[in-house]
């Protein structure tokens, strides 16, 4: 009796917790609200199965608890029942899978007009590179990374000259413009994760990975690293700010191009030379 009752109460308690506990996802700030929808669909289907099976177990334990004089039913198989249950499960699983695959197809298909931004991860922080006026990110190679060239841009590639280098742990993005994050790391695995955006992808040294989204809500969001990357993993956080056009333009204007940065560091070198001469 107690056992049946507690299985019953656990089930009721789980449902109650689901509907009335304060812990739920953050308000979505990108076009991936349909990921939330697939989660909700999964909740309804699996939740129904969970409740049905738990109630069935509780009922059996209550109804068929041991009596010395009673015998259990002797029925090794029931082919009809087994095949019905198998088909019902297969249909339920297909109902979960199909919408999932549709959304995944959208997730891995980047729209052509997406604005490209490089996310540059290192132990333990973030930098960003914007493509500049030509809308093309210049090529890079890890062997060119130095104090003067922190992103390792290839100097011969003209497309890199106007790239905007953002080295302040803070990225601004424009609301309603599709954006493709090109994810790059120079050391270990990282993952560029903003809970409100829902998207995620590991960053792997040696290759450039990506995902895309369209920010849909103005706001100031925290960036977290979602792939373990060593002792400083928990502290590897930054900010992404979704702006309306006016604020975005203002921020963009403040960023400097690679070309200017190179010139500046050369000037610094010259100044130092001058100082030394003195």
């Amino acid at each position, binding site marked *: 009796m107690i056992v049946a009752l507690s299985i019953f109460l656990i089930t009721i308690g789980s449902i109650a917790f689901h509907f009335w506990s*304060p812990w739920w996802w953050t308000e979505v700030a990108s076009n991936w609200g349909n990921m939330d929808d697939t989660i909700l669909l999964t909740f309804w289907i699996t939740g129904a199965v969970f409740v049905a099976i738990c109630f069935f177990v509780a009922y059996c334990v209550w109804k068929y608890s041991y009596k010395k004089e009673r015998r259990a039913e002797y*029925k090794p198989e029931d082919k009809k029942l087994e095949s019905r249950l198998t088909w019902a499960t297969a249909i339920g699983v297909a109902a979960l899978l199909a919408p999932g695959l549709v959304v*995944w197809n959208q997730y891995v298909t980047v729209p052509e007009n997406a604005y490209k931004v490089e996310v540059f991860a290192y132990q333990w922080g973030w930098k960003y590179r914007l493509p500049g006026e030509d809308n093309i990110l210049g090529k890079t190679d890890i062997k060119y990374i130095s104090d003067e060239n922190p992103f390792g841009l290839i100097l011969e590639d003209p497309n890199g000259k106007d790239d905007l280098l953002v080295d302040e742990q803070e990225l601004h993005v424009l609301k309603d413009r599709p954006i493709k994050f090109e994810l790059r790391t*120079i050391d270990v695995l990282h993952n560029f994760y903003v*809970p409100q955006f829902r998207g995620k*992808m590991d960053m792997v040294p040696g290759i450039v990975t990506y995902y895309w989204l369209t920010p849909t809500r103005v706001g100031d969001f925290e960036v977290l690293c979602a792939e373990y990357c*060593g002792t400083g993993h928990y502290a590897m956080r930054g900010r992404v700010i979704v702006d309306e056009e006016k604020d975005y333009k203002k921020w963009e204007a403040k960023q400097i191009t690679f070309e200017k940065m190179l010139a500046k560091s050369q000037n610094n070198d010259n100044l130092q030379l001058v100082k030394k001469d003195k």
Partner: protein
Amino acid sequence: MSDEQDHKLEAKSDYVADASSVSTPDIDAVPEAELPDQELYHSHSWWTTYVFSQDAKYIGIQYALTAIGTGLLGLVLSWLMRIQLAFPGLGWLEPSSYYQFVTMHGMIMVVYLLTALFLGGFGNLLIPLMCGARDMAFPYVNMLSYWAFVVAVIVLLASFFVPGGPTGAGWTLYPPQAITAGTPGYNGGIILMLISLILFVAGFTMGGLNYIITVLQLRARGMTLMRMPLTIWGIFTATVLAMFAFPALLVGCLMMTLDSLLGTSFFMPAMVSLGEKLTHEGGSPILFQHLFWFFGHPEVYIVALPAFGIVSDLLSVHSRKTIFGYRMMVWAIVGIGALSFFVWAHHMYVSGMNPWFGFFFATTTLIIAVPTAIKVYNWILTLWRGNIQLSLPMLFSLGFIVTFLNGGLTGLFLGNVTVDVPLSDTYFVVAHFHMVMGIAPILVIFGAIYHWYPLITGRMMNETLGKIHFWITFLGSYAIYFPMHYQGFVGVPRRYFEIYDSPYIDTSTLLLNKFITIAVLIVGAAQLLFLYNLFASARLGKKSEKNPWKANSLEWQTPQMPPEHGNWGKELPKVYRWPYDFSVPGAKEDYIPQNQPPSEIIGAKVEKT
């Protein structure tokens, strides 16, 4: 059960009837033995009896105790981590020790506790007894297997004492961070971890070959494959999986050892480590992930399949009812085992591998849900119209059904590639895998220990202590892991040493962390009760009668209980039926042991098996 089997049996009895020209066919006929009786090693000294034992039963107990001892360390590590998470103000741990404890906890629990306990422990104890053999096929190799495991554990524990401490790379040991400077234990601890795993695989291979060959070659006369207890089917299939899966881990470990010690670049691309350019180039970190998960996913089933098998037997015995749909259960075990080699990359949806793989692996992963669901249905249909005894093994089995159901269903979230994107690397994952491959199998282990304890010691464990242990463990661990899923929805990432200044995380989430930690401490402490019961009952427990649960399978039918060396006295048992003939109409008792000849139970309406 199988039609083919029926046909063979009928043919056999006809033949016997003709040959002996007796009017009634010999209903007690069993096939002739195909191999001569096994010659056993007999120990002569205390050392060869109790330490370097070659008796599978002893080796099983040795395996189990070593695994439980190591598991206790894993438990203590989980306490330390949880205290840090709930009460960061105490300054209890450094980030580096937190990550080291996370890593060691994970690896210990998955490999050195669960795998060793299910296969090394229950495999050794139960395979010869349940199959009706005298011992494993190769007792000496079996002994070596255990001692290789001991050495592996010693090497693992030694990593706590090397400079830099144990590795803090996470139990998945992903390179490059596992062997580069930003991770604790990157040059000492990790090497010992890799060597320990290599030793474990070597030792396990010796044991595994034994389990497979014993099941295939040394079954008693009449014990057809489709008459084996599901426990044996589970352990057997899991061992076959291990034989295919562990080599992937082995080569992964070897290659990473070479990368770290000799400067090769299997997994290491050109990279800058904390401002310093390394000499590696051209390697692929994702290659390691493929190798790791090609082992890692079957590993989940290496733990789960024995649990599935054991819980089927416990449910059947303690509800006095035939297991429902035995043939489906066997095919589900085999099918899950085979499919488990085609789903590994569902751990890697957001790993940066070609995203188009997602379609394939999401589909295979959701297909595997079907045989798994069938198993759940058949467990609960075994309870239906049964005669359910709420003994300790039954309580733990019921606990298993609830937790496994919960953990299995959340697997449908993570396996479905799109749903995985927001949830991966959050506490939802932590909650899911602890529920499904932590709590659920451990509840089965407890049930199995309460069930088979009399077989080992000849005494029963204390029922009251056992009940207290059950309620705290079951309710407590549900209270730990059910709410933890919701932290994952909020977006709390896993493997975070602390996250207390994040704008999007409500203070109530932190309160939940405290609640979980308190539950962890209580559940952990309740295990001391179990340990006391385990050791004290060997002396103080009520003496058990022979076959205390009135079970049918062979391990309870030995001439002596507990069984002696060689298990079966002079003559090996003969098997006439499957182990699930409970509550057969027309039979005097509500159970018919597998070795009871049909001539002794005339009138019982047994279906042919």
